[in-house]
C-alpha cells in the first residue's frame, strides 16, 4: 500500500539534532494531513454532535466519567502503538493486567503493605512482557502466536493465583485517588497525559523512535544499518508488560476490586484504538497523537451512544465497523489512486511478522 514511510532509507546514527527534529516534524505534518487529520475531524464532529444531540453529554461529570473509562485503554495503547509500529503485536496485555491484579489481591490478602505490592506488580508486568520478548527475539517466533499463547497462560495463572476471590478491602486513600477529579479532569488523566507525552517524545523525537520506525518498515535493512533489532523488540515487549501492570493498578483502585477476571476483553479494544489511530498493522507507520485521538474517539462514541440509550449490540457493531473502515479507507484510496495513475508492478515486502 502507499506508504508514507517515515524513513526513505535505513537510519544511521550520525544525524544531527536539527535534522532529527526536522525529520520528525516533517513526518508528523505529513501524516497529519492524512489519517490523523481525518480522525481529528471525526472526533470534533462527534463531540459537537453529542453535545447538542445527546442529553447529559456536555457536562463536567460526564466528561470525567468518559476520561476515566478510557484510562486503562489509553495507557496500554501507548506501548501497543510502539509494538505495532515495530511490526509486532501483543495480544496478552489484558491478561498481564489480570495477572497483575491477581498478584495484587493475593499479596494484599497475605498482609503486605500496598506500597510494597505496587512495585512488585510492575515487576510482574515486566516479567510477563520479558517472556513475550524472549520468545519473539531469541526464538524468532511470530508474535501473534506467542501472545495468543501468553494471553491464555497469564489469564490462567491469574485464576490459579487468586482463584474465585474478589479482594475488595483496598485502602481508601488509593481508591479515592484513582477516582479523584478536578472538575472535568480526573487525576489519572493527568498521569495518562504525562505517560503519553513521554511515549510521544520517545517515538517521534528520539533515535530510539526512529529505530523503531525503521525496524518496523524493514527489519533486515534496519539490522544491517546498525539498529539493534532484537534488543529494541525485547524492551518494547517488556515495556508493554510494565504499562499493562500500571494500567492494572489504576483499574484495581478505580473499581476498588482485585479479581482474576479484571480487564477481560480489553486487548481487542486497545488494538482497535491503535489501528483506528492510523498505525499500520504492517509496521513502520503511525503516530502517537493519532492513537490518543482514536482512544478518545472510541470513548466518546461509546459514551454518547450509551447516553442516547442505543442498544449494546449496536455499540459492538459500530466498533467493528470503525475498525474495518480504518483500514479499508486507505486501501480503497490507494486502489483508486492506482487506477488513476500509471500502473506499475508492486511487490509487497516479504518481511516476516
Amino acid at each position, binding site marked *: 500500500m502507499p506508504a508514507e514511510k517515515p524513513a526513505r532509507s535505513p537510519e544511521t546514527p550520525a544525524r544531527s539534532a536539527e535534522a532529527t527534529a526536522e525529520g520528525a516534524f516533517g513526518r508528523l505534518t505529513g501524516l497529519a494531513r492524512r489519517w490523523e487529520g481525518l480522525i481529528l475531524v471525526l472526533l470534533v464532529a462527534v463531540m459537537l454532535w453529542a453535545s447538542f444531540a445527546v442529553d447529559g453529554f456536555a457536562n463536567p461529570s460526564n466528561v470525567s466519567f468518559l476520561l476515566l473509562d478510557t484510562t486503562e485503554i489509553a495507557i496500554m495503547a501507548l506501548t501497543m502503538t510502539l509494538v505495532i509500529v515495530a511490526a509486532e503485536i501483543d495480544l496478552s496485555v489484558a491478561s498481564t493486567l489480570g495477572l497483575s491484579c491477581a498478584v495484587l489481591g493475593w499479596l494484599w490478602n497475605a498482609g503486605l503493605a500496598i506500597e510494597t505490592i505496587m512495585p512488585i506488580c510492575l515487576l510482574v508486568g515486566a516479567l510477563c512482557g520479558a517472556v513475550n520478548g524472549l520468545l519473539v527475539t531469541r526464538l524468532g517466533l511470530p508474535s501473534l502466536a506467542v501472545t495468543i*499463547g501468553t494471553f*491464555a497462560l497469564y489469564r*490462567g495463572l491469574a485464576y*490459579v493465583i487468586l482463584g474465585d476471590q474478589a479482594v475488595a478491602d483496598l485502602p481508601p486513600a488509593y481508591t479515592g485517588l484513582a477516582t479523584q477529579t478536578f472538575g472535568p479532569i480526573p487525576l489519572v488523566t493527568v498521569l495518562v497525559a504525562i505517560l503519553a507525552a513521554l511515549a510521544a517524545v520517545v517515538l517521534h523525537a528520539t533515535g530510539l523512535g526512529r529505530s523503531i520506525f525503521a525496524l518496523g518498515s524493514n527489519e533486515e535493512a534496519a539490522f544491517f544499518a546498525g539498529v539493534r533489532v532484537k534488543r529494541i523488540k525485547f524492551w518494547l515487549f517488556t515495556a508493554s508488560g510494565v504499562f499493562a501492570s500500571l494500567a492494572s493498578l489504576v483499574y484495581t483502585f478505580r473499581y476498588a476490586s482485585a479479581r482474576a477476571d479484571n480487564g477481560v476483553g480489553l486487548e*481487542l479494544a486497545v488494538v482497535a484504538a491503535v489501528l483506528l489511530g492510523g498505525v499500520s498493522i504492517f509496521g513502520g507507520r503511525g503516530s502517537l497523537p493519532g492513537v490518543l485521538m482514536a482512544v478518545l474517539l472510541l470513548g466518546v462514541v461509546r459514551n454518547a451512544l450509551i447516553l442516547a440509550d442505543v442498544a449494546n449490540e*449496536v455499540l*459492538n457493531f459500530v466498533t467493528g465497523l470503525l475498525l*474495518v473502515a*480504518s483500514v479499508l479507507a486507505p486501501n480503497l484510496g490507494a486502489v483508486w489512486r492506482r487506477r488513476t495513475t500509471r500502473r506499475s508492478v508492486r511487490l509487497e515486502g516479504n518481511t516476516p511478522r
Partner: protein
Amino acid sequence: MSGPEAEVLRDAGAAEAALPGGPGAPNGRGLVERVARVRELGIVVALVALFGVTGAVNPAFLGFDSLRDILLNSAIIAMLAVGQTLVVVTRNVDLSVSSIVGLAAFGGAVILADDPGVPIPVVIAGCVLLGALCGAVNGLLVGVAKVPALVATLGTLYAFRGIDFAVAGGRQVNAADMPEAFLSLGSGSVLGLPLLALVAVVVLLAVGWMMGNLPWGRELYAIGSNPDAAVLAGIRVRRRVVTAFVVNGALAGLAGVMWAARFGTVDATVATGKELDVIAAVVVGGVAIFGGSGTVYGAALGALLLSSITSALAVLRVDALAQTAINGALLIAAIVLDRVLALRVAAALRRRRYRDAR
C-alpha cells in the same frame, strides 16, 4: 516453518525435483514430508501419553463411553479447525468464526422452533449458506480490499456478534422447542460412533484429500509461502483467498447447526470466545501461523488433543481453574517445538546441500 527456513526448504524441493531420479528420491522433499509427519506424530504421541497417564489414574477414562464423549466434544472444534486451516495456510486468520457459529446456531434454532414444518436438511443447508455468506464478507475484505486479516476478522467478529444480539434479543431457544429428529442428530450414533464426530471425520477426510491432491489445494500453500511469487506464478490469489474464507464460513455455519443439535439451548452468546480455542488447536496441530505449511489432519488432531486435556483435567480432579493456563502453556510449547524443528531441518538441508554440491 517460515521465513528463511521455508525458503531453504522450497529451494531444496525445487532443486531436488530437477535432479536425476526425480521427486521422491531420498532428498529434500522426502525430508520435508517426513518432518510434517513427525509433527503430527508428535501430537499422536502426546495424545497417547495423555490417555496413558489419565487412564492409569482412572481406568474409566479409557472406557467406551468416555472416548465417545471426547470424540463428541472435539467434533465441533475439529470442524472449525479444519476450516481455519484453509485460511491460516494462506497466511491469514479468521477470528470471526465464533460469531458465525453463534449466528448460524441461533438462526437454525429459531427457524426450527418457529416453523417446525421446514424440513431439517433445508435448515442445515440454510445455515451453511449463511456461514458461507459471512465468510464471503471476510473474503472480500481480505482478498479484494486487501484489509489485513487480523483487522478485518476482528471487525467482523464484533459486527457479526452484534447482528446476532440484535436478531436474538433475550430469546433463548430450548431443547423442548426443537423437533426431536433434529436433536437426535446431536446425540445419535452410527455403528457406535457419534454422528457428529462422523460428520467431522468425513469433512476432515474430504478437505484433507482436496488440499493434498487438487491443484487449488497446492495453490493455497503457495499463496501462504510466498504471496508475491504466487502472483507472479499466475495463481489467482484473490479467488483462492476468497474461496478459503467462504469455505471456512460454510464449515462454521455447519458447526453452528451441530452446536444447536448437540446442546439444545441456544441464545445470543453461543460460541463466544471459541475463536481462540480454534486457533490454539490449529497452531498446536502444526499449522504455521505464517502460512505455507501444515495439514488439516494435524489441526484436527490438535483439536482432539485440547479437548482431551479438558476432559482429562476433569477426571484427574485437577482444579478447573488451571485449564486456561495449561492451554496457553501448550500453545507456546507447540510453537517453540515447531521452531526448533524448523531450525533443525534447515540446518540439515544446508548440510546436505553443501555435501551434494561438492
